[in-house]
């Protein structure tokens, strides 16, 4: 580096001689430049820390015929069967996974397609358990199937009025409720009292701008479902009337969950917010926490008081704790597949995260202590 006086603009006078190189202003100038370079290097190295990509956490659980990919949607856990219930979409199968071993059993006979084109519009996409049977909705055939898990086969099928989303068994009325967002309605099926629980459509409940997700609160005799934006509605199970509507903290309402014993209703928002609503009281938002993004189907473990939220936008599984007063706290975050859209909790301390592109599930061990006493 040459250290010399700057040329005088528009001057025709030669520059004065350069000063001694290791003295005075010139030496300070070089030191300043070196310091600037070192500082820059340190800053850029610091900014690059943490930039390395990482793979998803947990154990991959392969599913039969899952390789082309599966458009997972609803996920459930049956304590009675001690199995994670995974509707297999395109594969045309319902998978029952033993939580400790990860062994998956496929019950087939649903609509199937060989290729996976993204989304979750094909085959079985929602399931619930009741009366010892499994109720499964099939989006391709627009039908409600009743499955005998012991036989491993479909035993009864009924047609649906519109494209289904969620199916839930209502023990209090011995009915099956199916959300049909394409028709802005809930369809209600009564079940034959004896023999096979053959479903018969008996009513529809209009839900404008919905319904999205569904959970049954037998203690309070209500069903809860979201409108697509901003609010959650409560429907009386007996009268089938909308009895309340509450702001839910979501710009885009997606997943739903319930701590029935404590009267806390959960909403998972696509934008990454989770809220707790006082379902036992006036429905106000008790607590809200924004972490991650891209949430859809959520899981809840009532024994631990842990909420599980999986989002593709954040490629993360977020674990939140619930206090006895309904306050949410952040517990931890795991790396999840970048295309995940759902998670379900079992009763042995695992969260099961969907991985649609690979047509498999990931089992993530929850390492956190119980949040509830």
């Amino acid at each position, binding site marked *: 580096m040459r250290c010399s006086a700057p*040329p*005088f603009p528009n001057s025709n006078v030669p520059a004065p001689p350069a000063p001694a190189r290791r003295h005075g202003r010139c030496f300070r100038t070089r030191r300043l430049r070196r310091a600037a*370079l070192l500082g820059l290097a340190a800053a850029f190295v610091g900014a690059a820390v*943490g930039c390395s990509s990482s793979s998803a956490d947990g154990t991959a659980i392969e599913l039969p015929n899952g390789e082309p990919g599966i458009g997972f949607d609803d996920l459930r856990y049956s304590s009675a069967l001690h199995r994670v219930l995974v509707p297999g979409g395109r594969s045309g199968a319902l998978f029952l996974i033993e939580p400790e071993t990860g062994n998956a059993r496929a019950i087939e006979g649903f609509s199937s397609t060989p290729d996976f084109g993204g989304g979750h519009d094909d085959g079985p996409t929602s399931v619930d358990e009741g009366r010892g049977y499994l109720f499964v909705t099939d989006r391709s055939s627009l039908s409600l199937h009743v499955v005998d898990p012991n036989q491993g086969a479909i035993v009864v099928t009924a047609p649906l009025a519109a494209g289904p989303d969620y199916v839930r068994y209502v023990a209090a009325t011995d009915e099956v409720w199916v959300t049909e967002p394409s028709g802005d309605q809930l369809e209600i099926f009564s079940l034959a009292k004896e023999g096979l629980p053959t479903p018969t459509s008996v009513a529809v409940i209009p839900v404008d701008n919905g319904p999205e997700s569904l959970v049954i609160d037998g203690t309070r005799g209500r069903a809860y479902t979201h409108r697509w934006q901003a609010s959650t509605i409560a429907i009386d199970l007996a009268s089938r009337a909308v009895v309340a509507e509450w702001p839910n903290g*979501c710009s885009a309402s997606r997943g739903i969950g319930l701590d029935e014993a404590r009267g806390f209703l959960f909403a998972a928002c*696509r934008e*990454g917010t989770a809220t707790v609503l006082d379902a036992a009281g006036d429905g106000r938002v008790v607590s809200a926490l924004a*972490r991650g993004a891209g949430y859809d189907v959520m899981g809840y473990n009532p024994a631990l008081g842990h909420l599980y939220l999986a989002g593709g936008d954040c490629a993360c599984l977020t674990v939140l704790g619930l206090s006895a007063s309904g306050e949410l706290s952040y517990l931890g975050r795991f790396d999840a597949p970048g295309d995940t859209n759902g998670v379900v909790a079992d009763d042995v301390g695992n969260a099961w995260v969907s991985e649609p592109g690979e047509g498999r599930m990931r089992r993530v061990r929850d390492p956190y202590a119980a949040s509830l006493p």
Partner: protein
Amino acid sequence: MKALAALAGAGLLAAAAPASAQSEEAPRRPIQAGARLGYALPLGSYEHGTAASDLSFGSAVLGLDGAYSLGRVVSLGGLARLGFGIPKACSTSGDCTSSLGRDVSLLALARFELGAFGRFVADAEAGLGYAWVTRRSSDDGTVSSRSYHGPVWVHAAVLPALRLGARARLALAVEADIGTALRTSLDAPGVDDARNADGPTLNAQVLLGLRGSFAFLPAPAPQRSVGSTCARPALRPWGRMVCRRAASVGA
């Protein structure tokens, strides 16, 4: 991301090379003003459990800066930036427009001239300041927004530039900011919550863009010493160049 770090390193090397092989000094630029446009990649997290990239792919950033030269190498000044966060979760053009995030940062900075090589010059910046970040998510007109604000502990940049005459330069801007969010708020249907951020955690952004700058050069001083030329130029603190007395020439 590694490529970005490599690019930053290459920029540093490119900036360092002319510093050691300088063949020509740039004209003194007492007052400098610049405008920059770039793309900022979010890194790190605003609080525990929240990655800076959760809701946004990055931000389109506009910046205005100004600096005053304290000597041959160092200038002091400020930088104001406005960024528009590009949302991840939106499905219609209307929602995507409503979901644009807002990044505002105000920085005090020192700029260092690293050296010159022909028409190429390189500057570096270091500074600190404060930043406000808002991420919005709109779905069919219903909006939820998260906001964070806190100090920017380190702003660093390297600005290899091409001289466009005596006053103007066009530079590649490679910048990095590292900061911490102190406060956060959530505004959503039924929710209006503000609290301290769950941290501390470090967030960062790496910005790649272009900077155009303009220098307000000093006016030539009255030539009153040796004939029609100035033998002993000197810079006054307010940036004006003057000639010293002829008696001091050659001293």
